[in-house]
């Protein structure tokens, strides 16, 4: 056993995101069991686990796409209060559109494949009420540029783009409104290794330039290791272990984490 981390705190940083004791079952299947997670402002929280561990369900809940059977979800932001799981559909939609960005593994979930790439980004701004064409175009271009999308393909529909480029469009859409929270669901899974490295690099840059709080879900430890400051290991709907990224990778405590880390190394 290691020591409990119960020393009095010396920094009074409050978490931006707190998920408390969330449970969700689908019939007899427990997708999540009393899961809690926090992310501090500017921090990257990595969630690892194999498929079926509940990590993606948890992320969808953070995007309010799914509501748990019980649990609390709060974001420490101006004008945002209470348990976000209790918000009505309208408030939920506005919150997600303006404060939370998400990148899905499957670009079909996040993009209109036949609309232009810039239009996909502009949609976010339109939902938030932007009504000037010139501004839409300029802001969409800026966001695409920040996600290192080649601007000569600005108006190409995602269906004509490679997988890596589609992820960049998703990313641009996610950051267009400068959200407080960026959620990434296996953002590089299925991409070629070289493309994967470039997309990860873009994410890393964005994180450093904008100090954006991120939650990244992946079964790939390499991805988590590259990006995360803190790591949460999930298995069968429960949190197995959580800690600073270097600690989880260098000194994993739980048998399952050790197995994961050693399988990778």
């Amino acid at each position: 056993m290691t020591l409990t981390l119960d020393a009095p705190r010396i920094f009074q940083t409050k978490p931006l995101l707190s998920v408390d004791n969330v449970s969700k079952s689908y019939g007899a299947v427990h997708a999540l069991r009393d899961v809690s997670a926090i992310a501090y402002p500017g921090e990257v929280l990595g969630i690892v686990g194999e498929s079926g561990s509940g990590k993606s369900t948890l992320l969808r809940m953070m995007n309010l796409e799914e509501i748990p059977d019980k649990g609390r979800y709060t974001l420490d932001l101006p004008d945002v209060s209470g348990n976000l799981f209790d918000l009505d559909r309208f408030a939920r939609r506005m919150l997600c559109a303006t404060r939370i960005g998400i990148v899905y593994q499957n670009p079909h979930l996040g993009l209109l494949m036949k609309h232009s790439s810039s239009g996909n980004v502009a949609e976010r701004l339109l939902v938030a009420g932007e009504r000037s064409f010139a501004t839409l175009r300029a802001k969409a271009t800026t966001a695409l540029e920040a996600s290192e999308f080649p601007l000569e393909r600005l108006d190409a529909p995602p269906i004509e783009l490679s997988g890596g480029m589609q992820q960049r469009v998703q990313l641009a859409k996610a950051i267009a409104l400068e959200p407080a929270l960026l959620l990434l669901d296996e953002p590089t899974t299925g991409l070629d290794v070289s493309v994967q490295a470039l997309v990860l690099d873009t994410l890393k840059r964005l994180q450093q330039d904008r100090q954006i709080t991120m939650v990244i879900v992946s079964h790939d430890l390499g991805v988590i290791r590259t990006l995360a400051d803190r790591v949460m290991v999930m298995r069968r709907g429960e949190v197995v272990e959580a800690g600073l990224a270097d600690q989880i990778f260098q000194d994993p405590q739980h048998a399952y984490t050790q197995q994961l880390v050693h399988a990778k190394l």
Partner: protein
Amino acid sequence: MTLKTLTKPWEAMSYGFLDGSAKREMRRKMLKSVAVPGCQMPYASREVPMARGWGTGGLQVSLTLVNPETRVKVIDQGADDSVNAASIRRFIARVAGTPTTMDTLKADLIQSRHRIPEEVLSEDQILVLQVPNPEPLRPVQPNMSIARQMHADADYGRMWLQLYEQIVRSGRVMQGASYPSLVNGRHVMTPSPIPRWDVPKLHMAKHLTILSAGREKRIYAVPPFTRVEPLVFSDVPYKVEDHAKLTCHRSGATGFFMNEIPQDDGSSTHEVSDSEWGVKAIRVRDGEKVALGETWYKDGEMPQ
């Protein structure tokens, strides 16, 4: 209560073709649609002796609203004398005994497809528009249950996105007819397949407009003095069709919405789309004394 007490005695004919309960439902739905401008209300849409898609929605509204004194005008593509318009007009007159007219100024009720007359409608007139596709969100959201939620949430981002895409692809907004418009600052409606030219006529109009889709079973309305704003970007102004400078080759009228008539030599001439307005112009030219109403457009421009 037995089925017998509930069933009305057989009648050879009901006034205005529709039976009493059908008309009562229509009236209720019309009142609802007036109460929430631009919001689509579902209704039963009874059978009428006409194929769905030929104006059955408009016809049911007209048949419900008429009484023996209502002067009815019916136009199709601006013309009173096209087959469909003439048939509907005759049908209403036959089953409701209403007088008919072609003069916009004299009509109490105008049923129309594709056009709003060029003469300004007044407080005591009702415009009934036949609508083929009442759902403005259909092109962006094929799932109608989700589309209804989007209306409820005023979630119209996708509508704007459609305009954005048109400008990106073609350099301008390509939407011709059925230009999506925000009613009373709340609901986006499709103003039936009227040209862009006619949409500003609905904005703060004195008359009541009822739009009805028989096949889709939806009714909605623009009450008098209600804002109707076409969706436009703040820096890309709304443009009507470029007809202001065109002259009608038959009546000589200029500054109105025109039909293009292709000629054998490849060129084209134009004639006023609102046929009765053209007829009036010819009669004035021939020296007849004709009452001309005020027009929405003046010298091809719509005054703000």
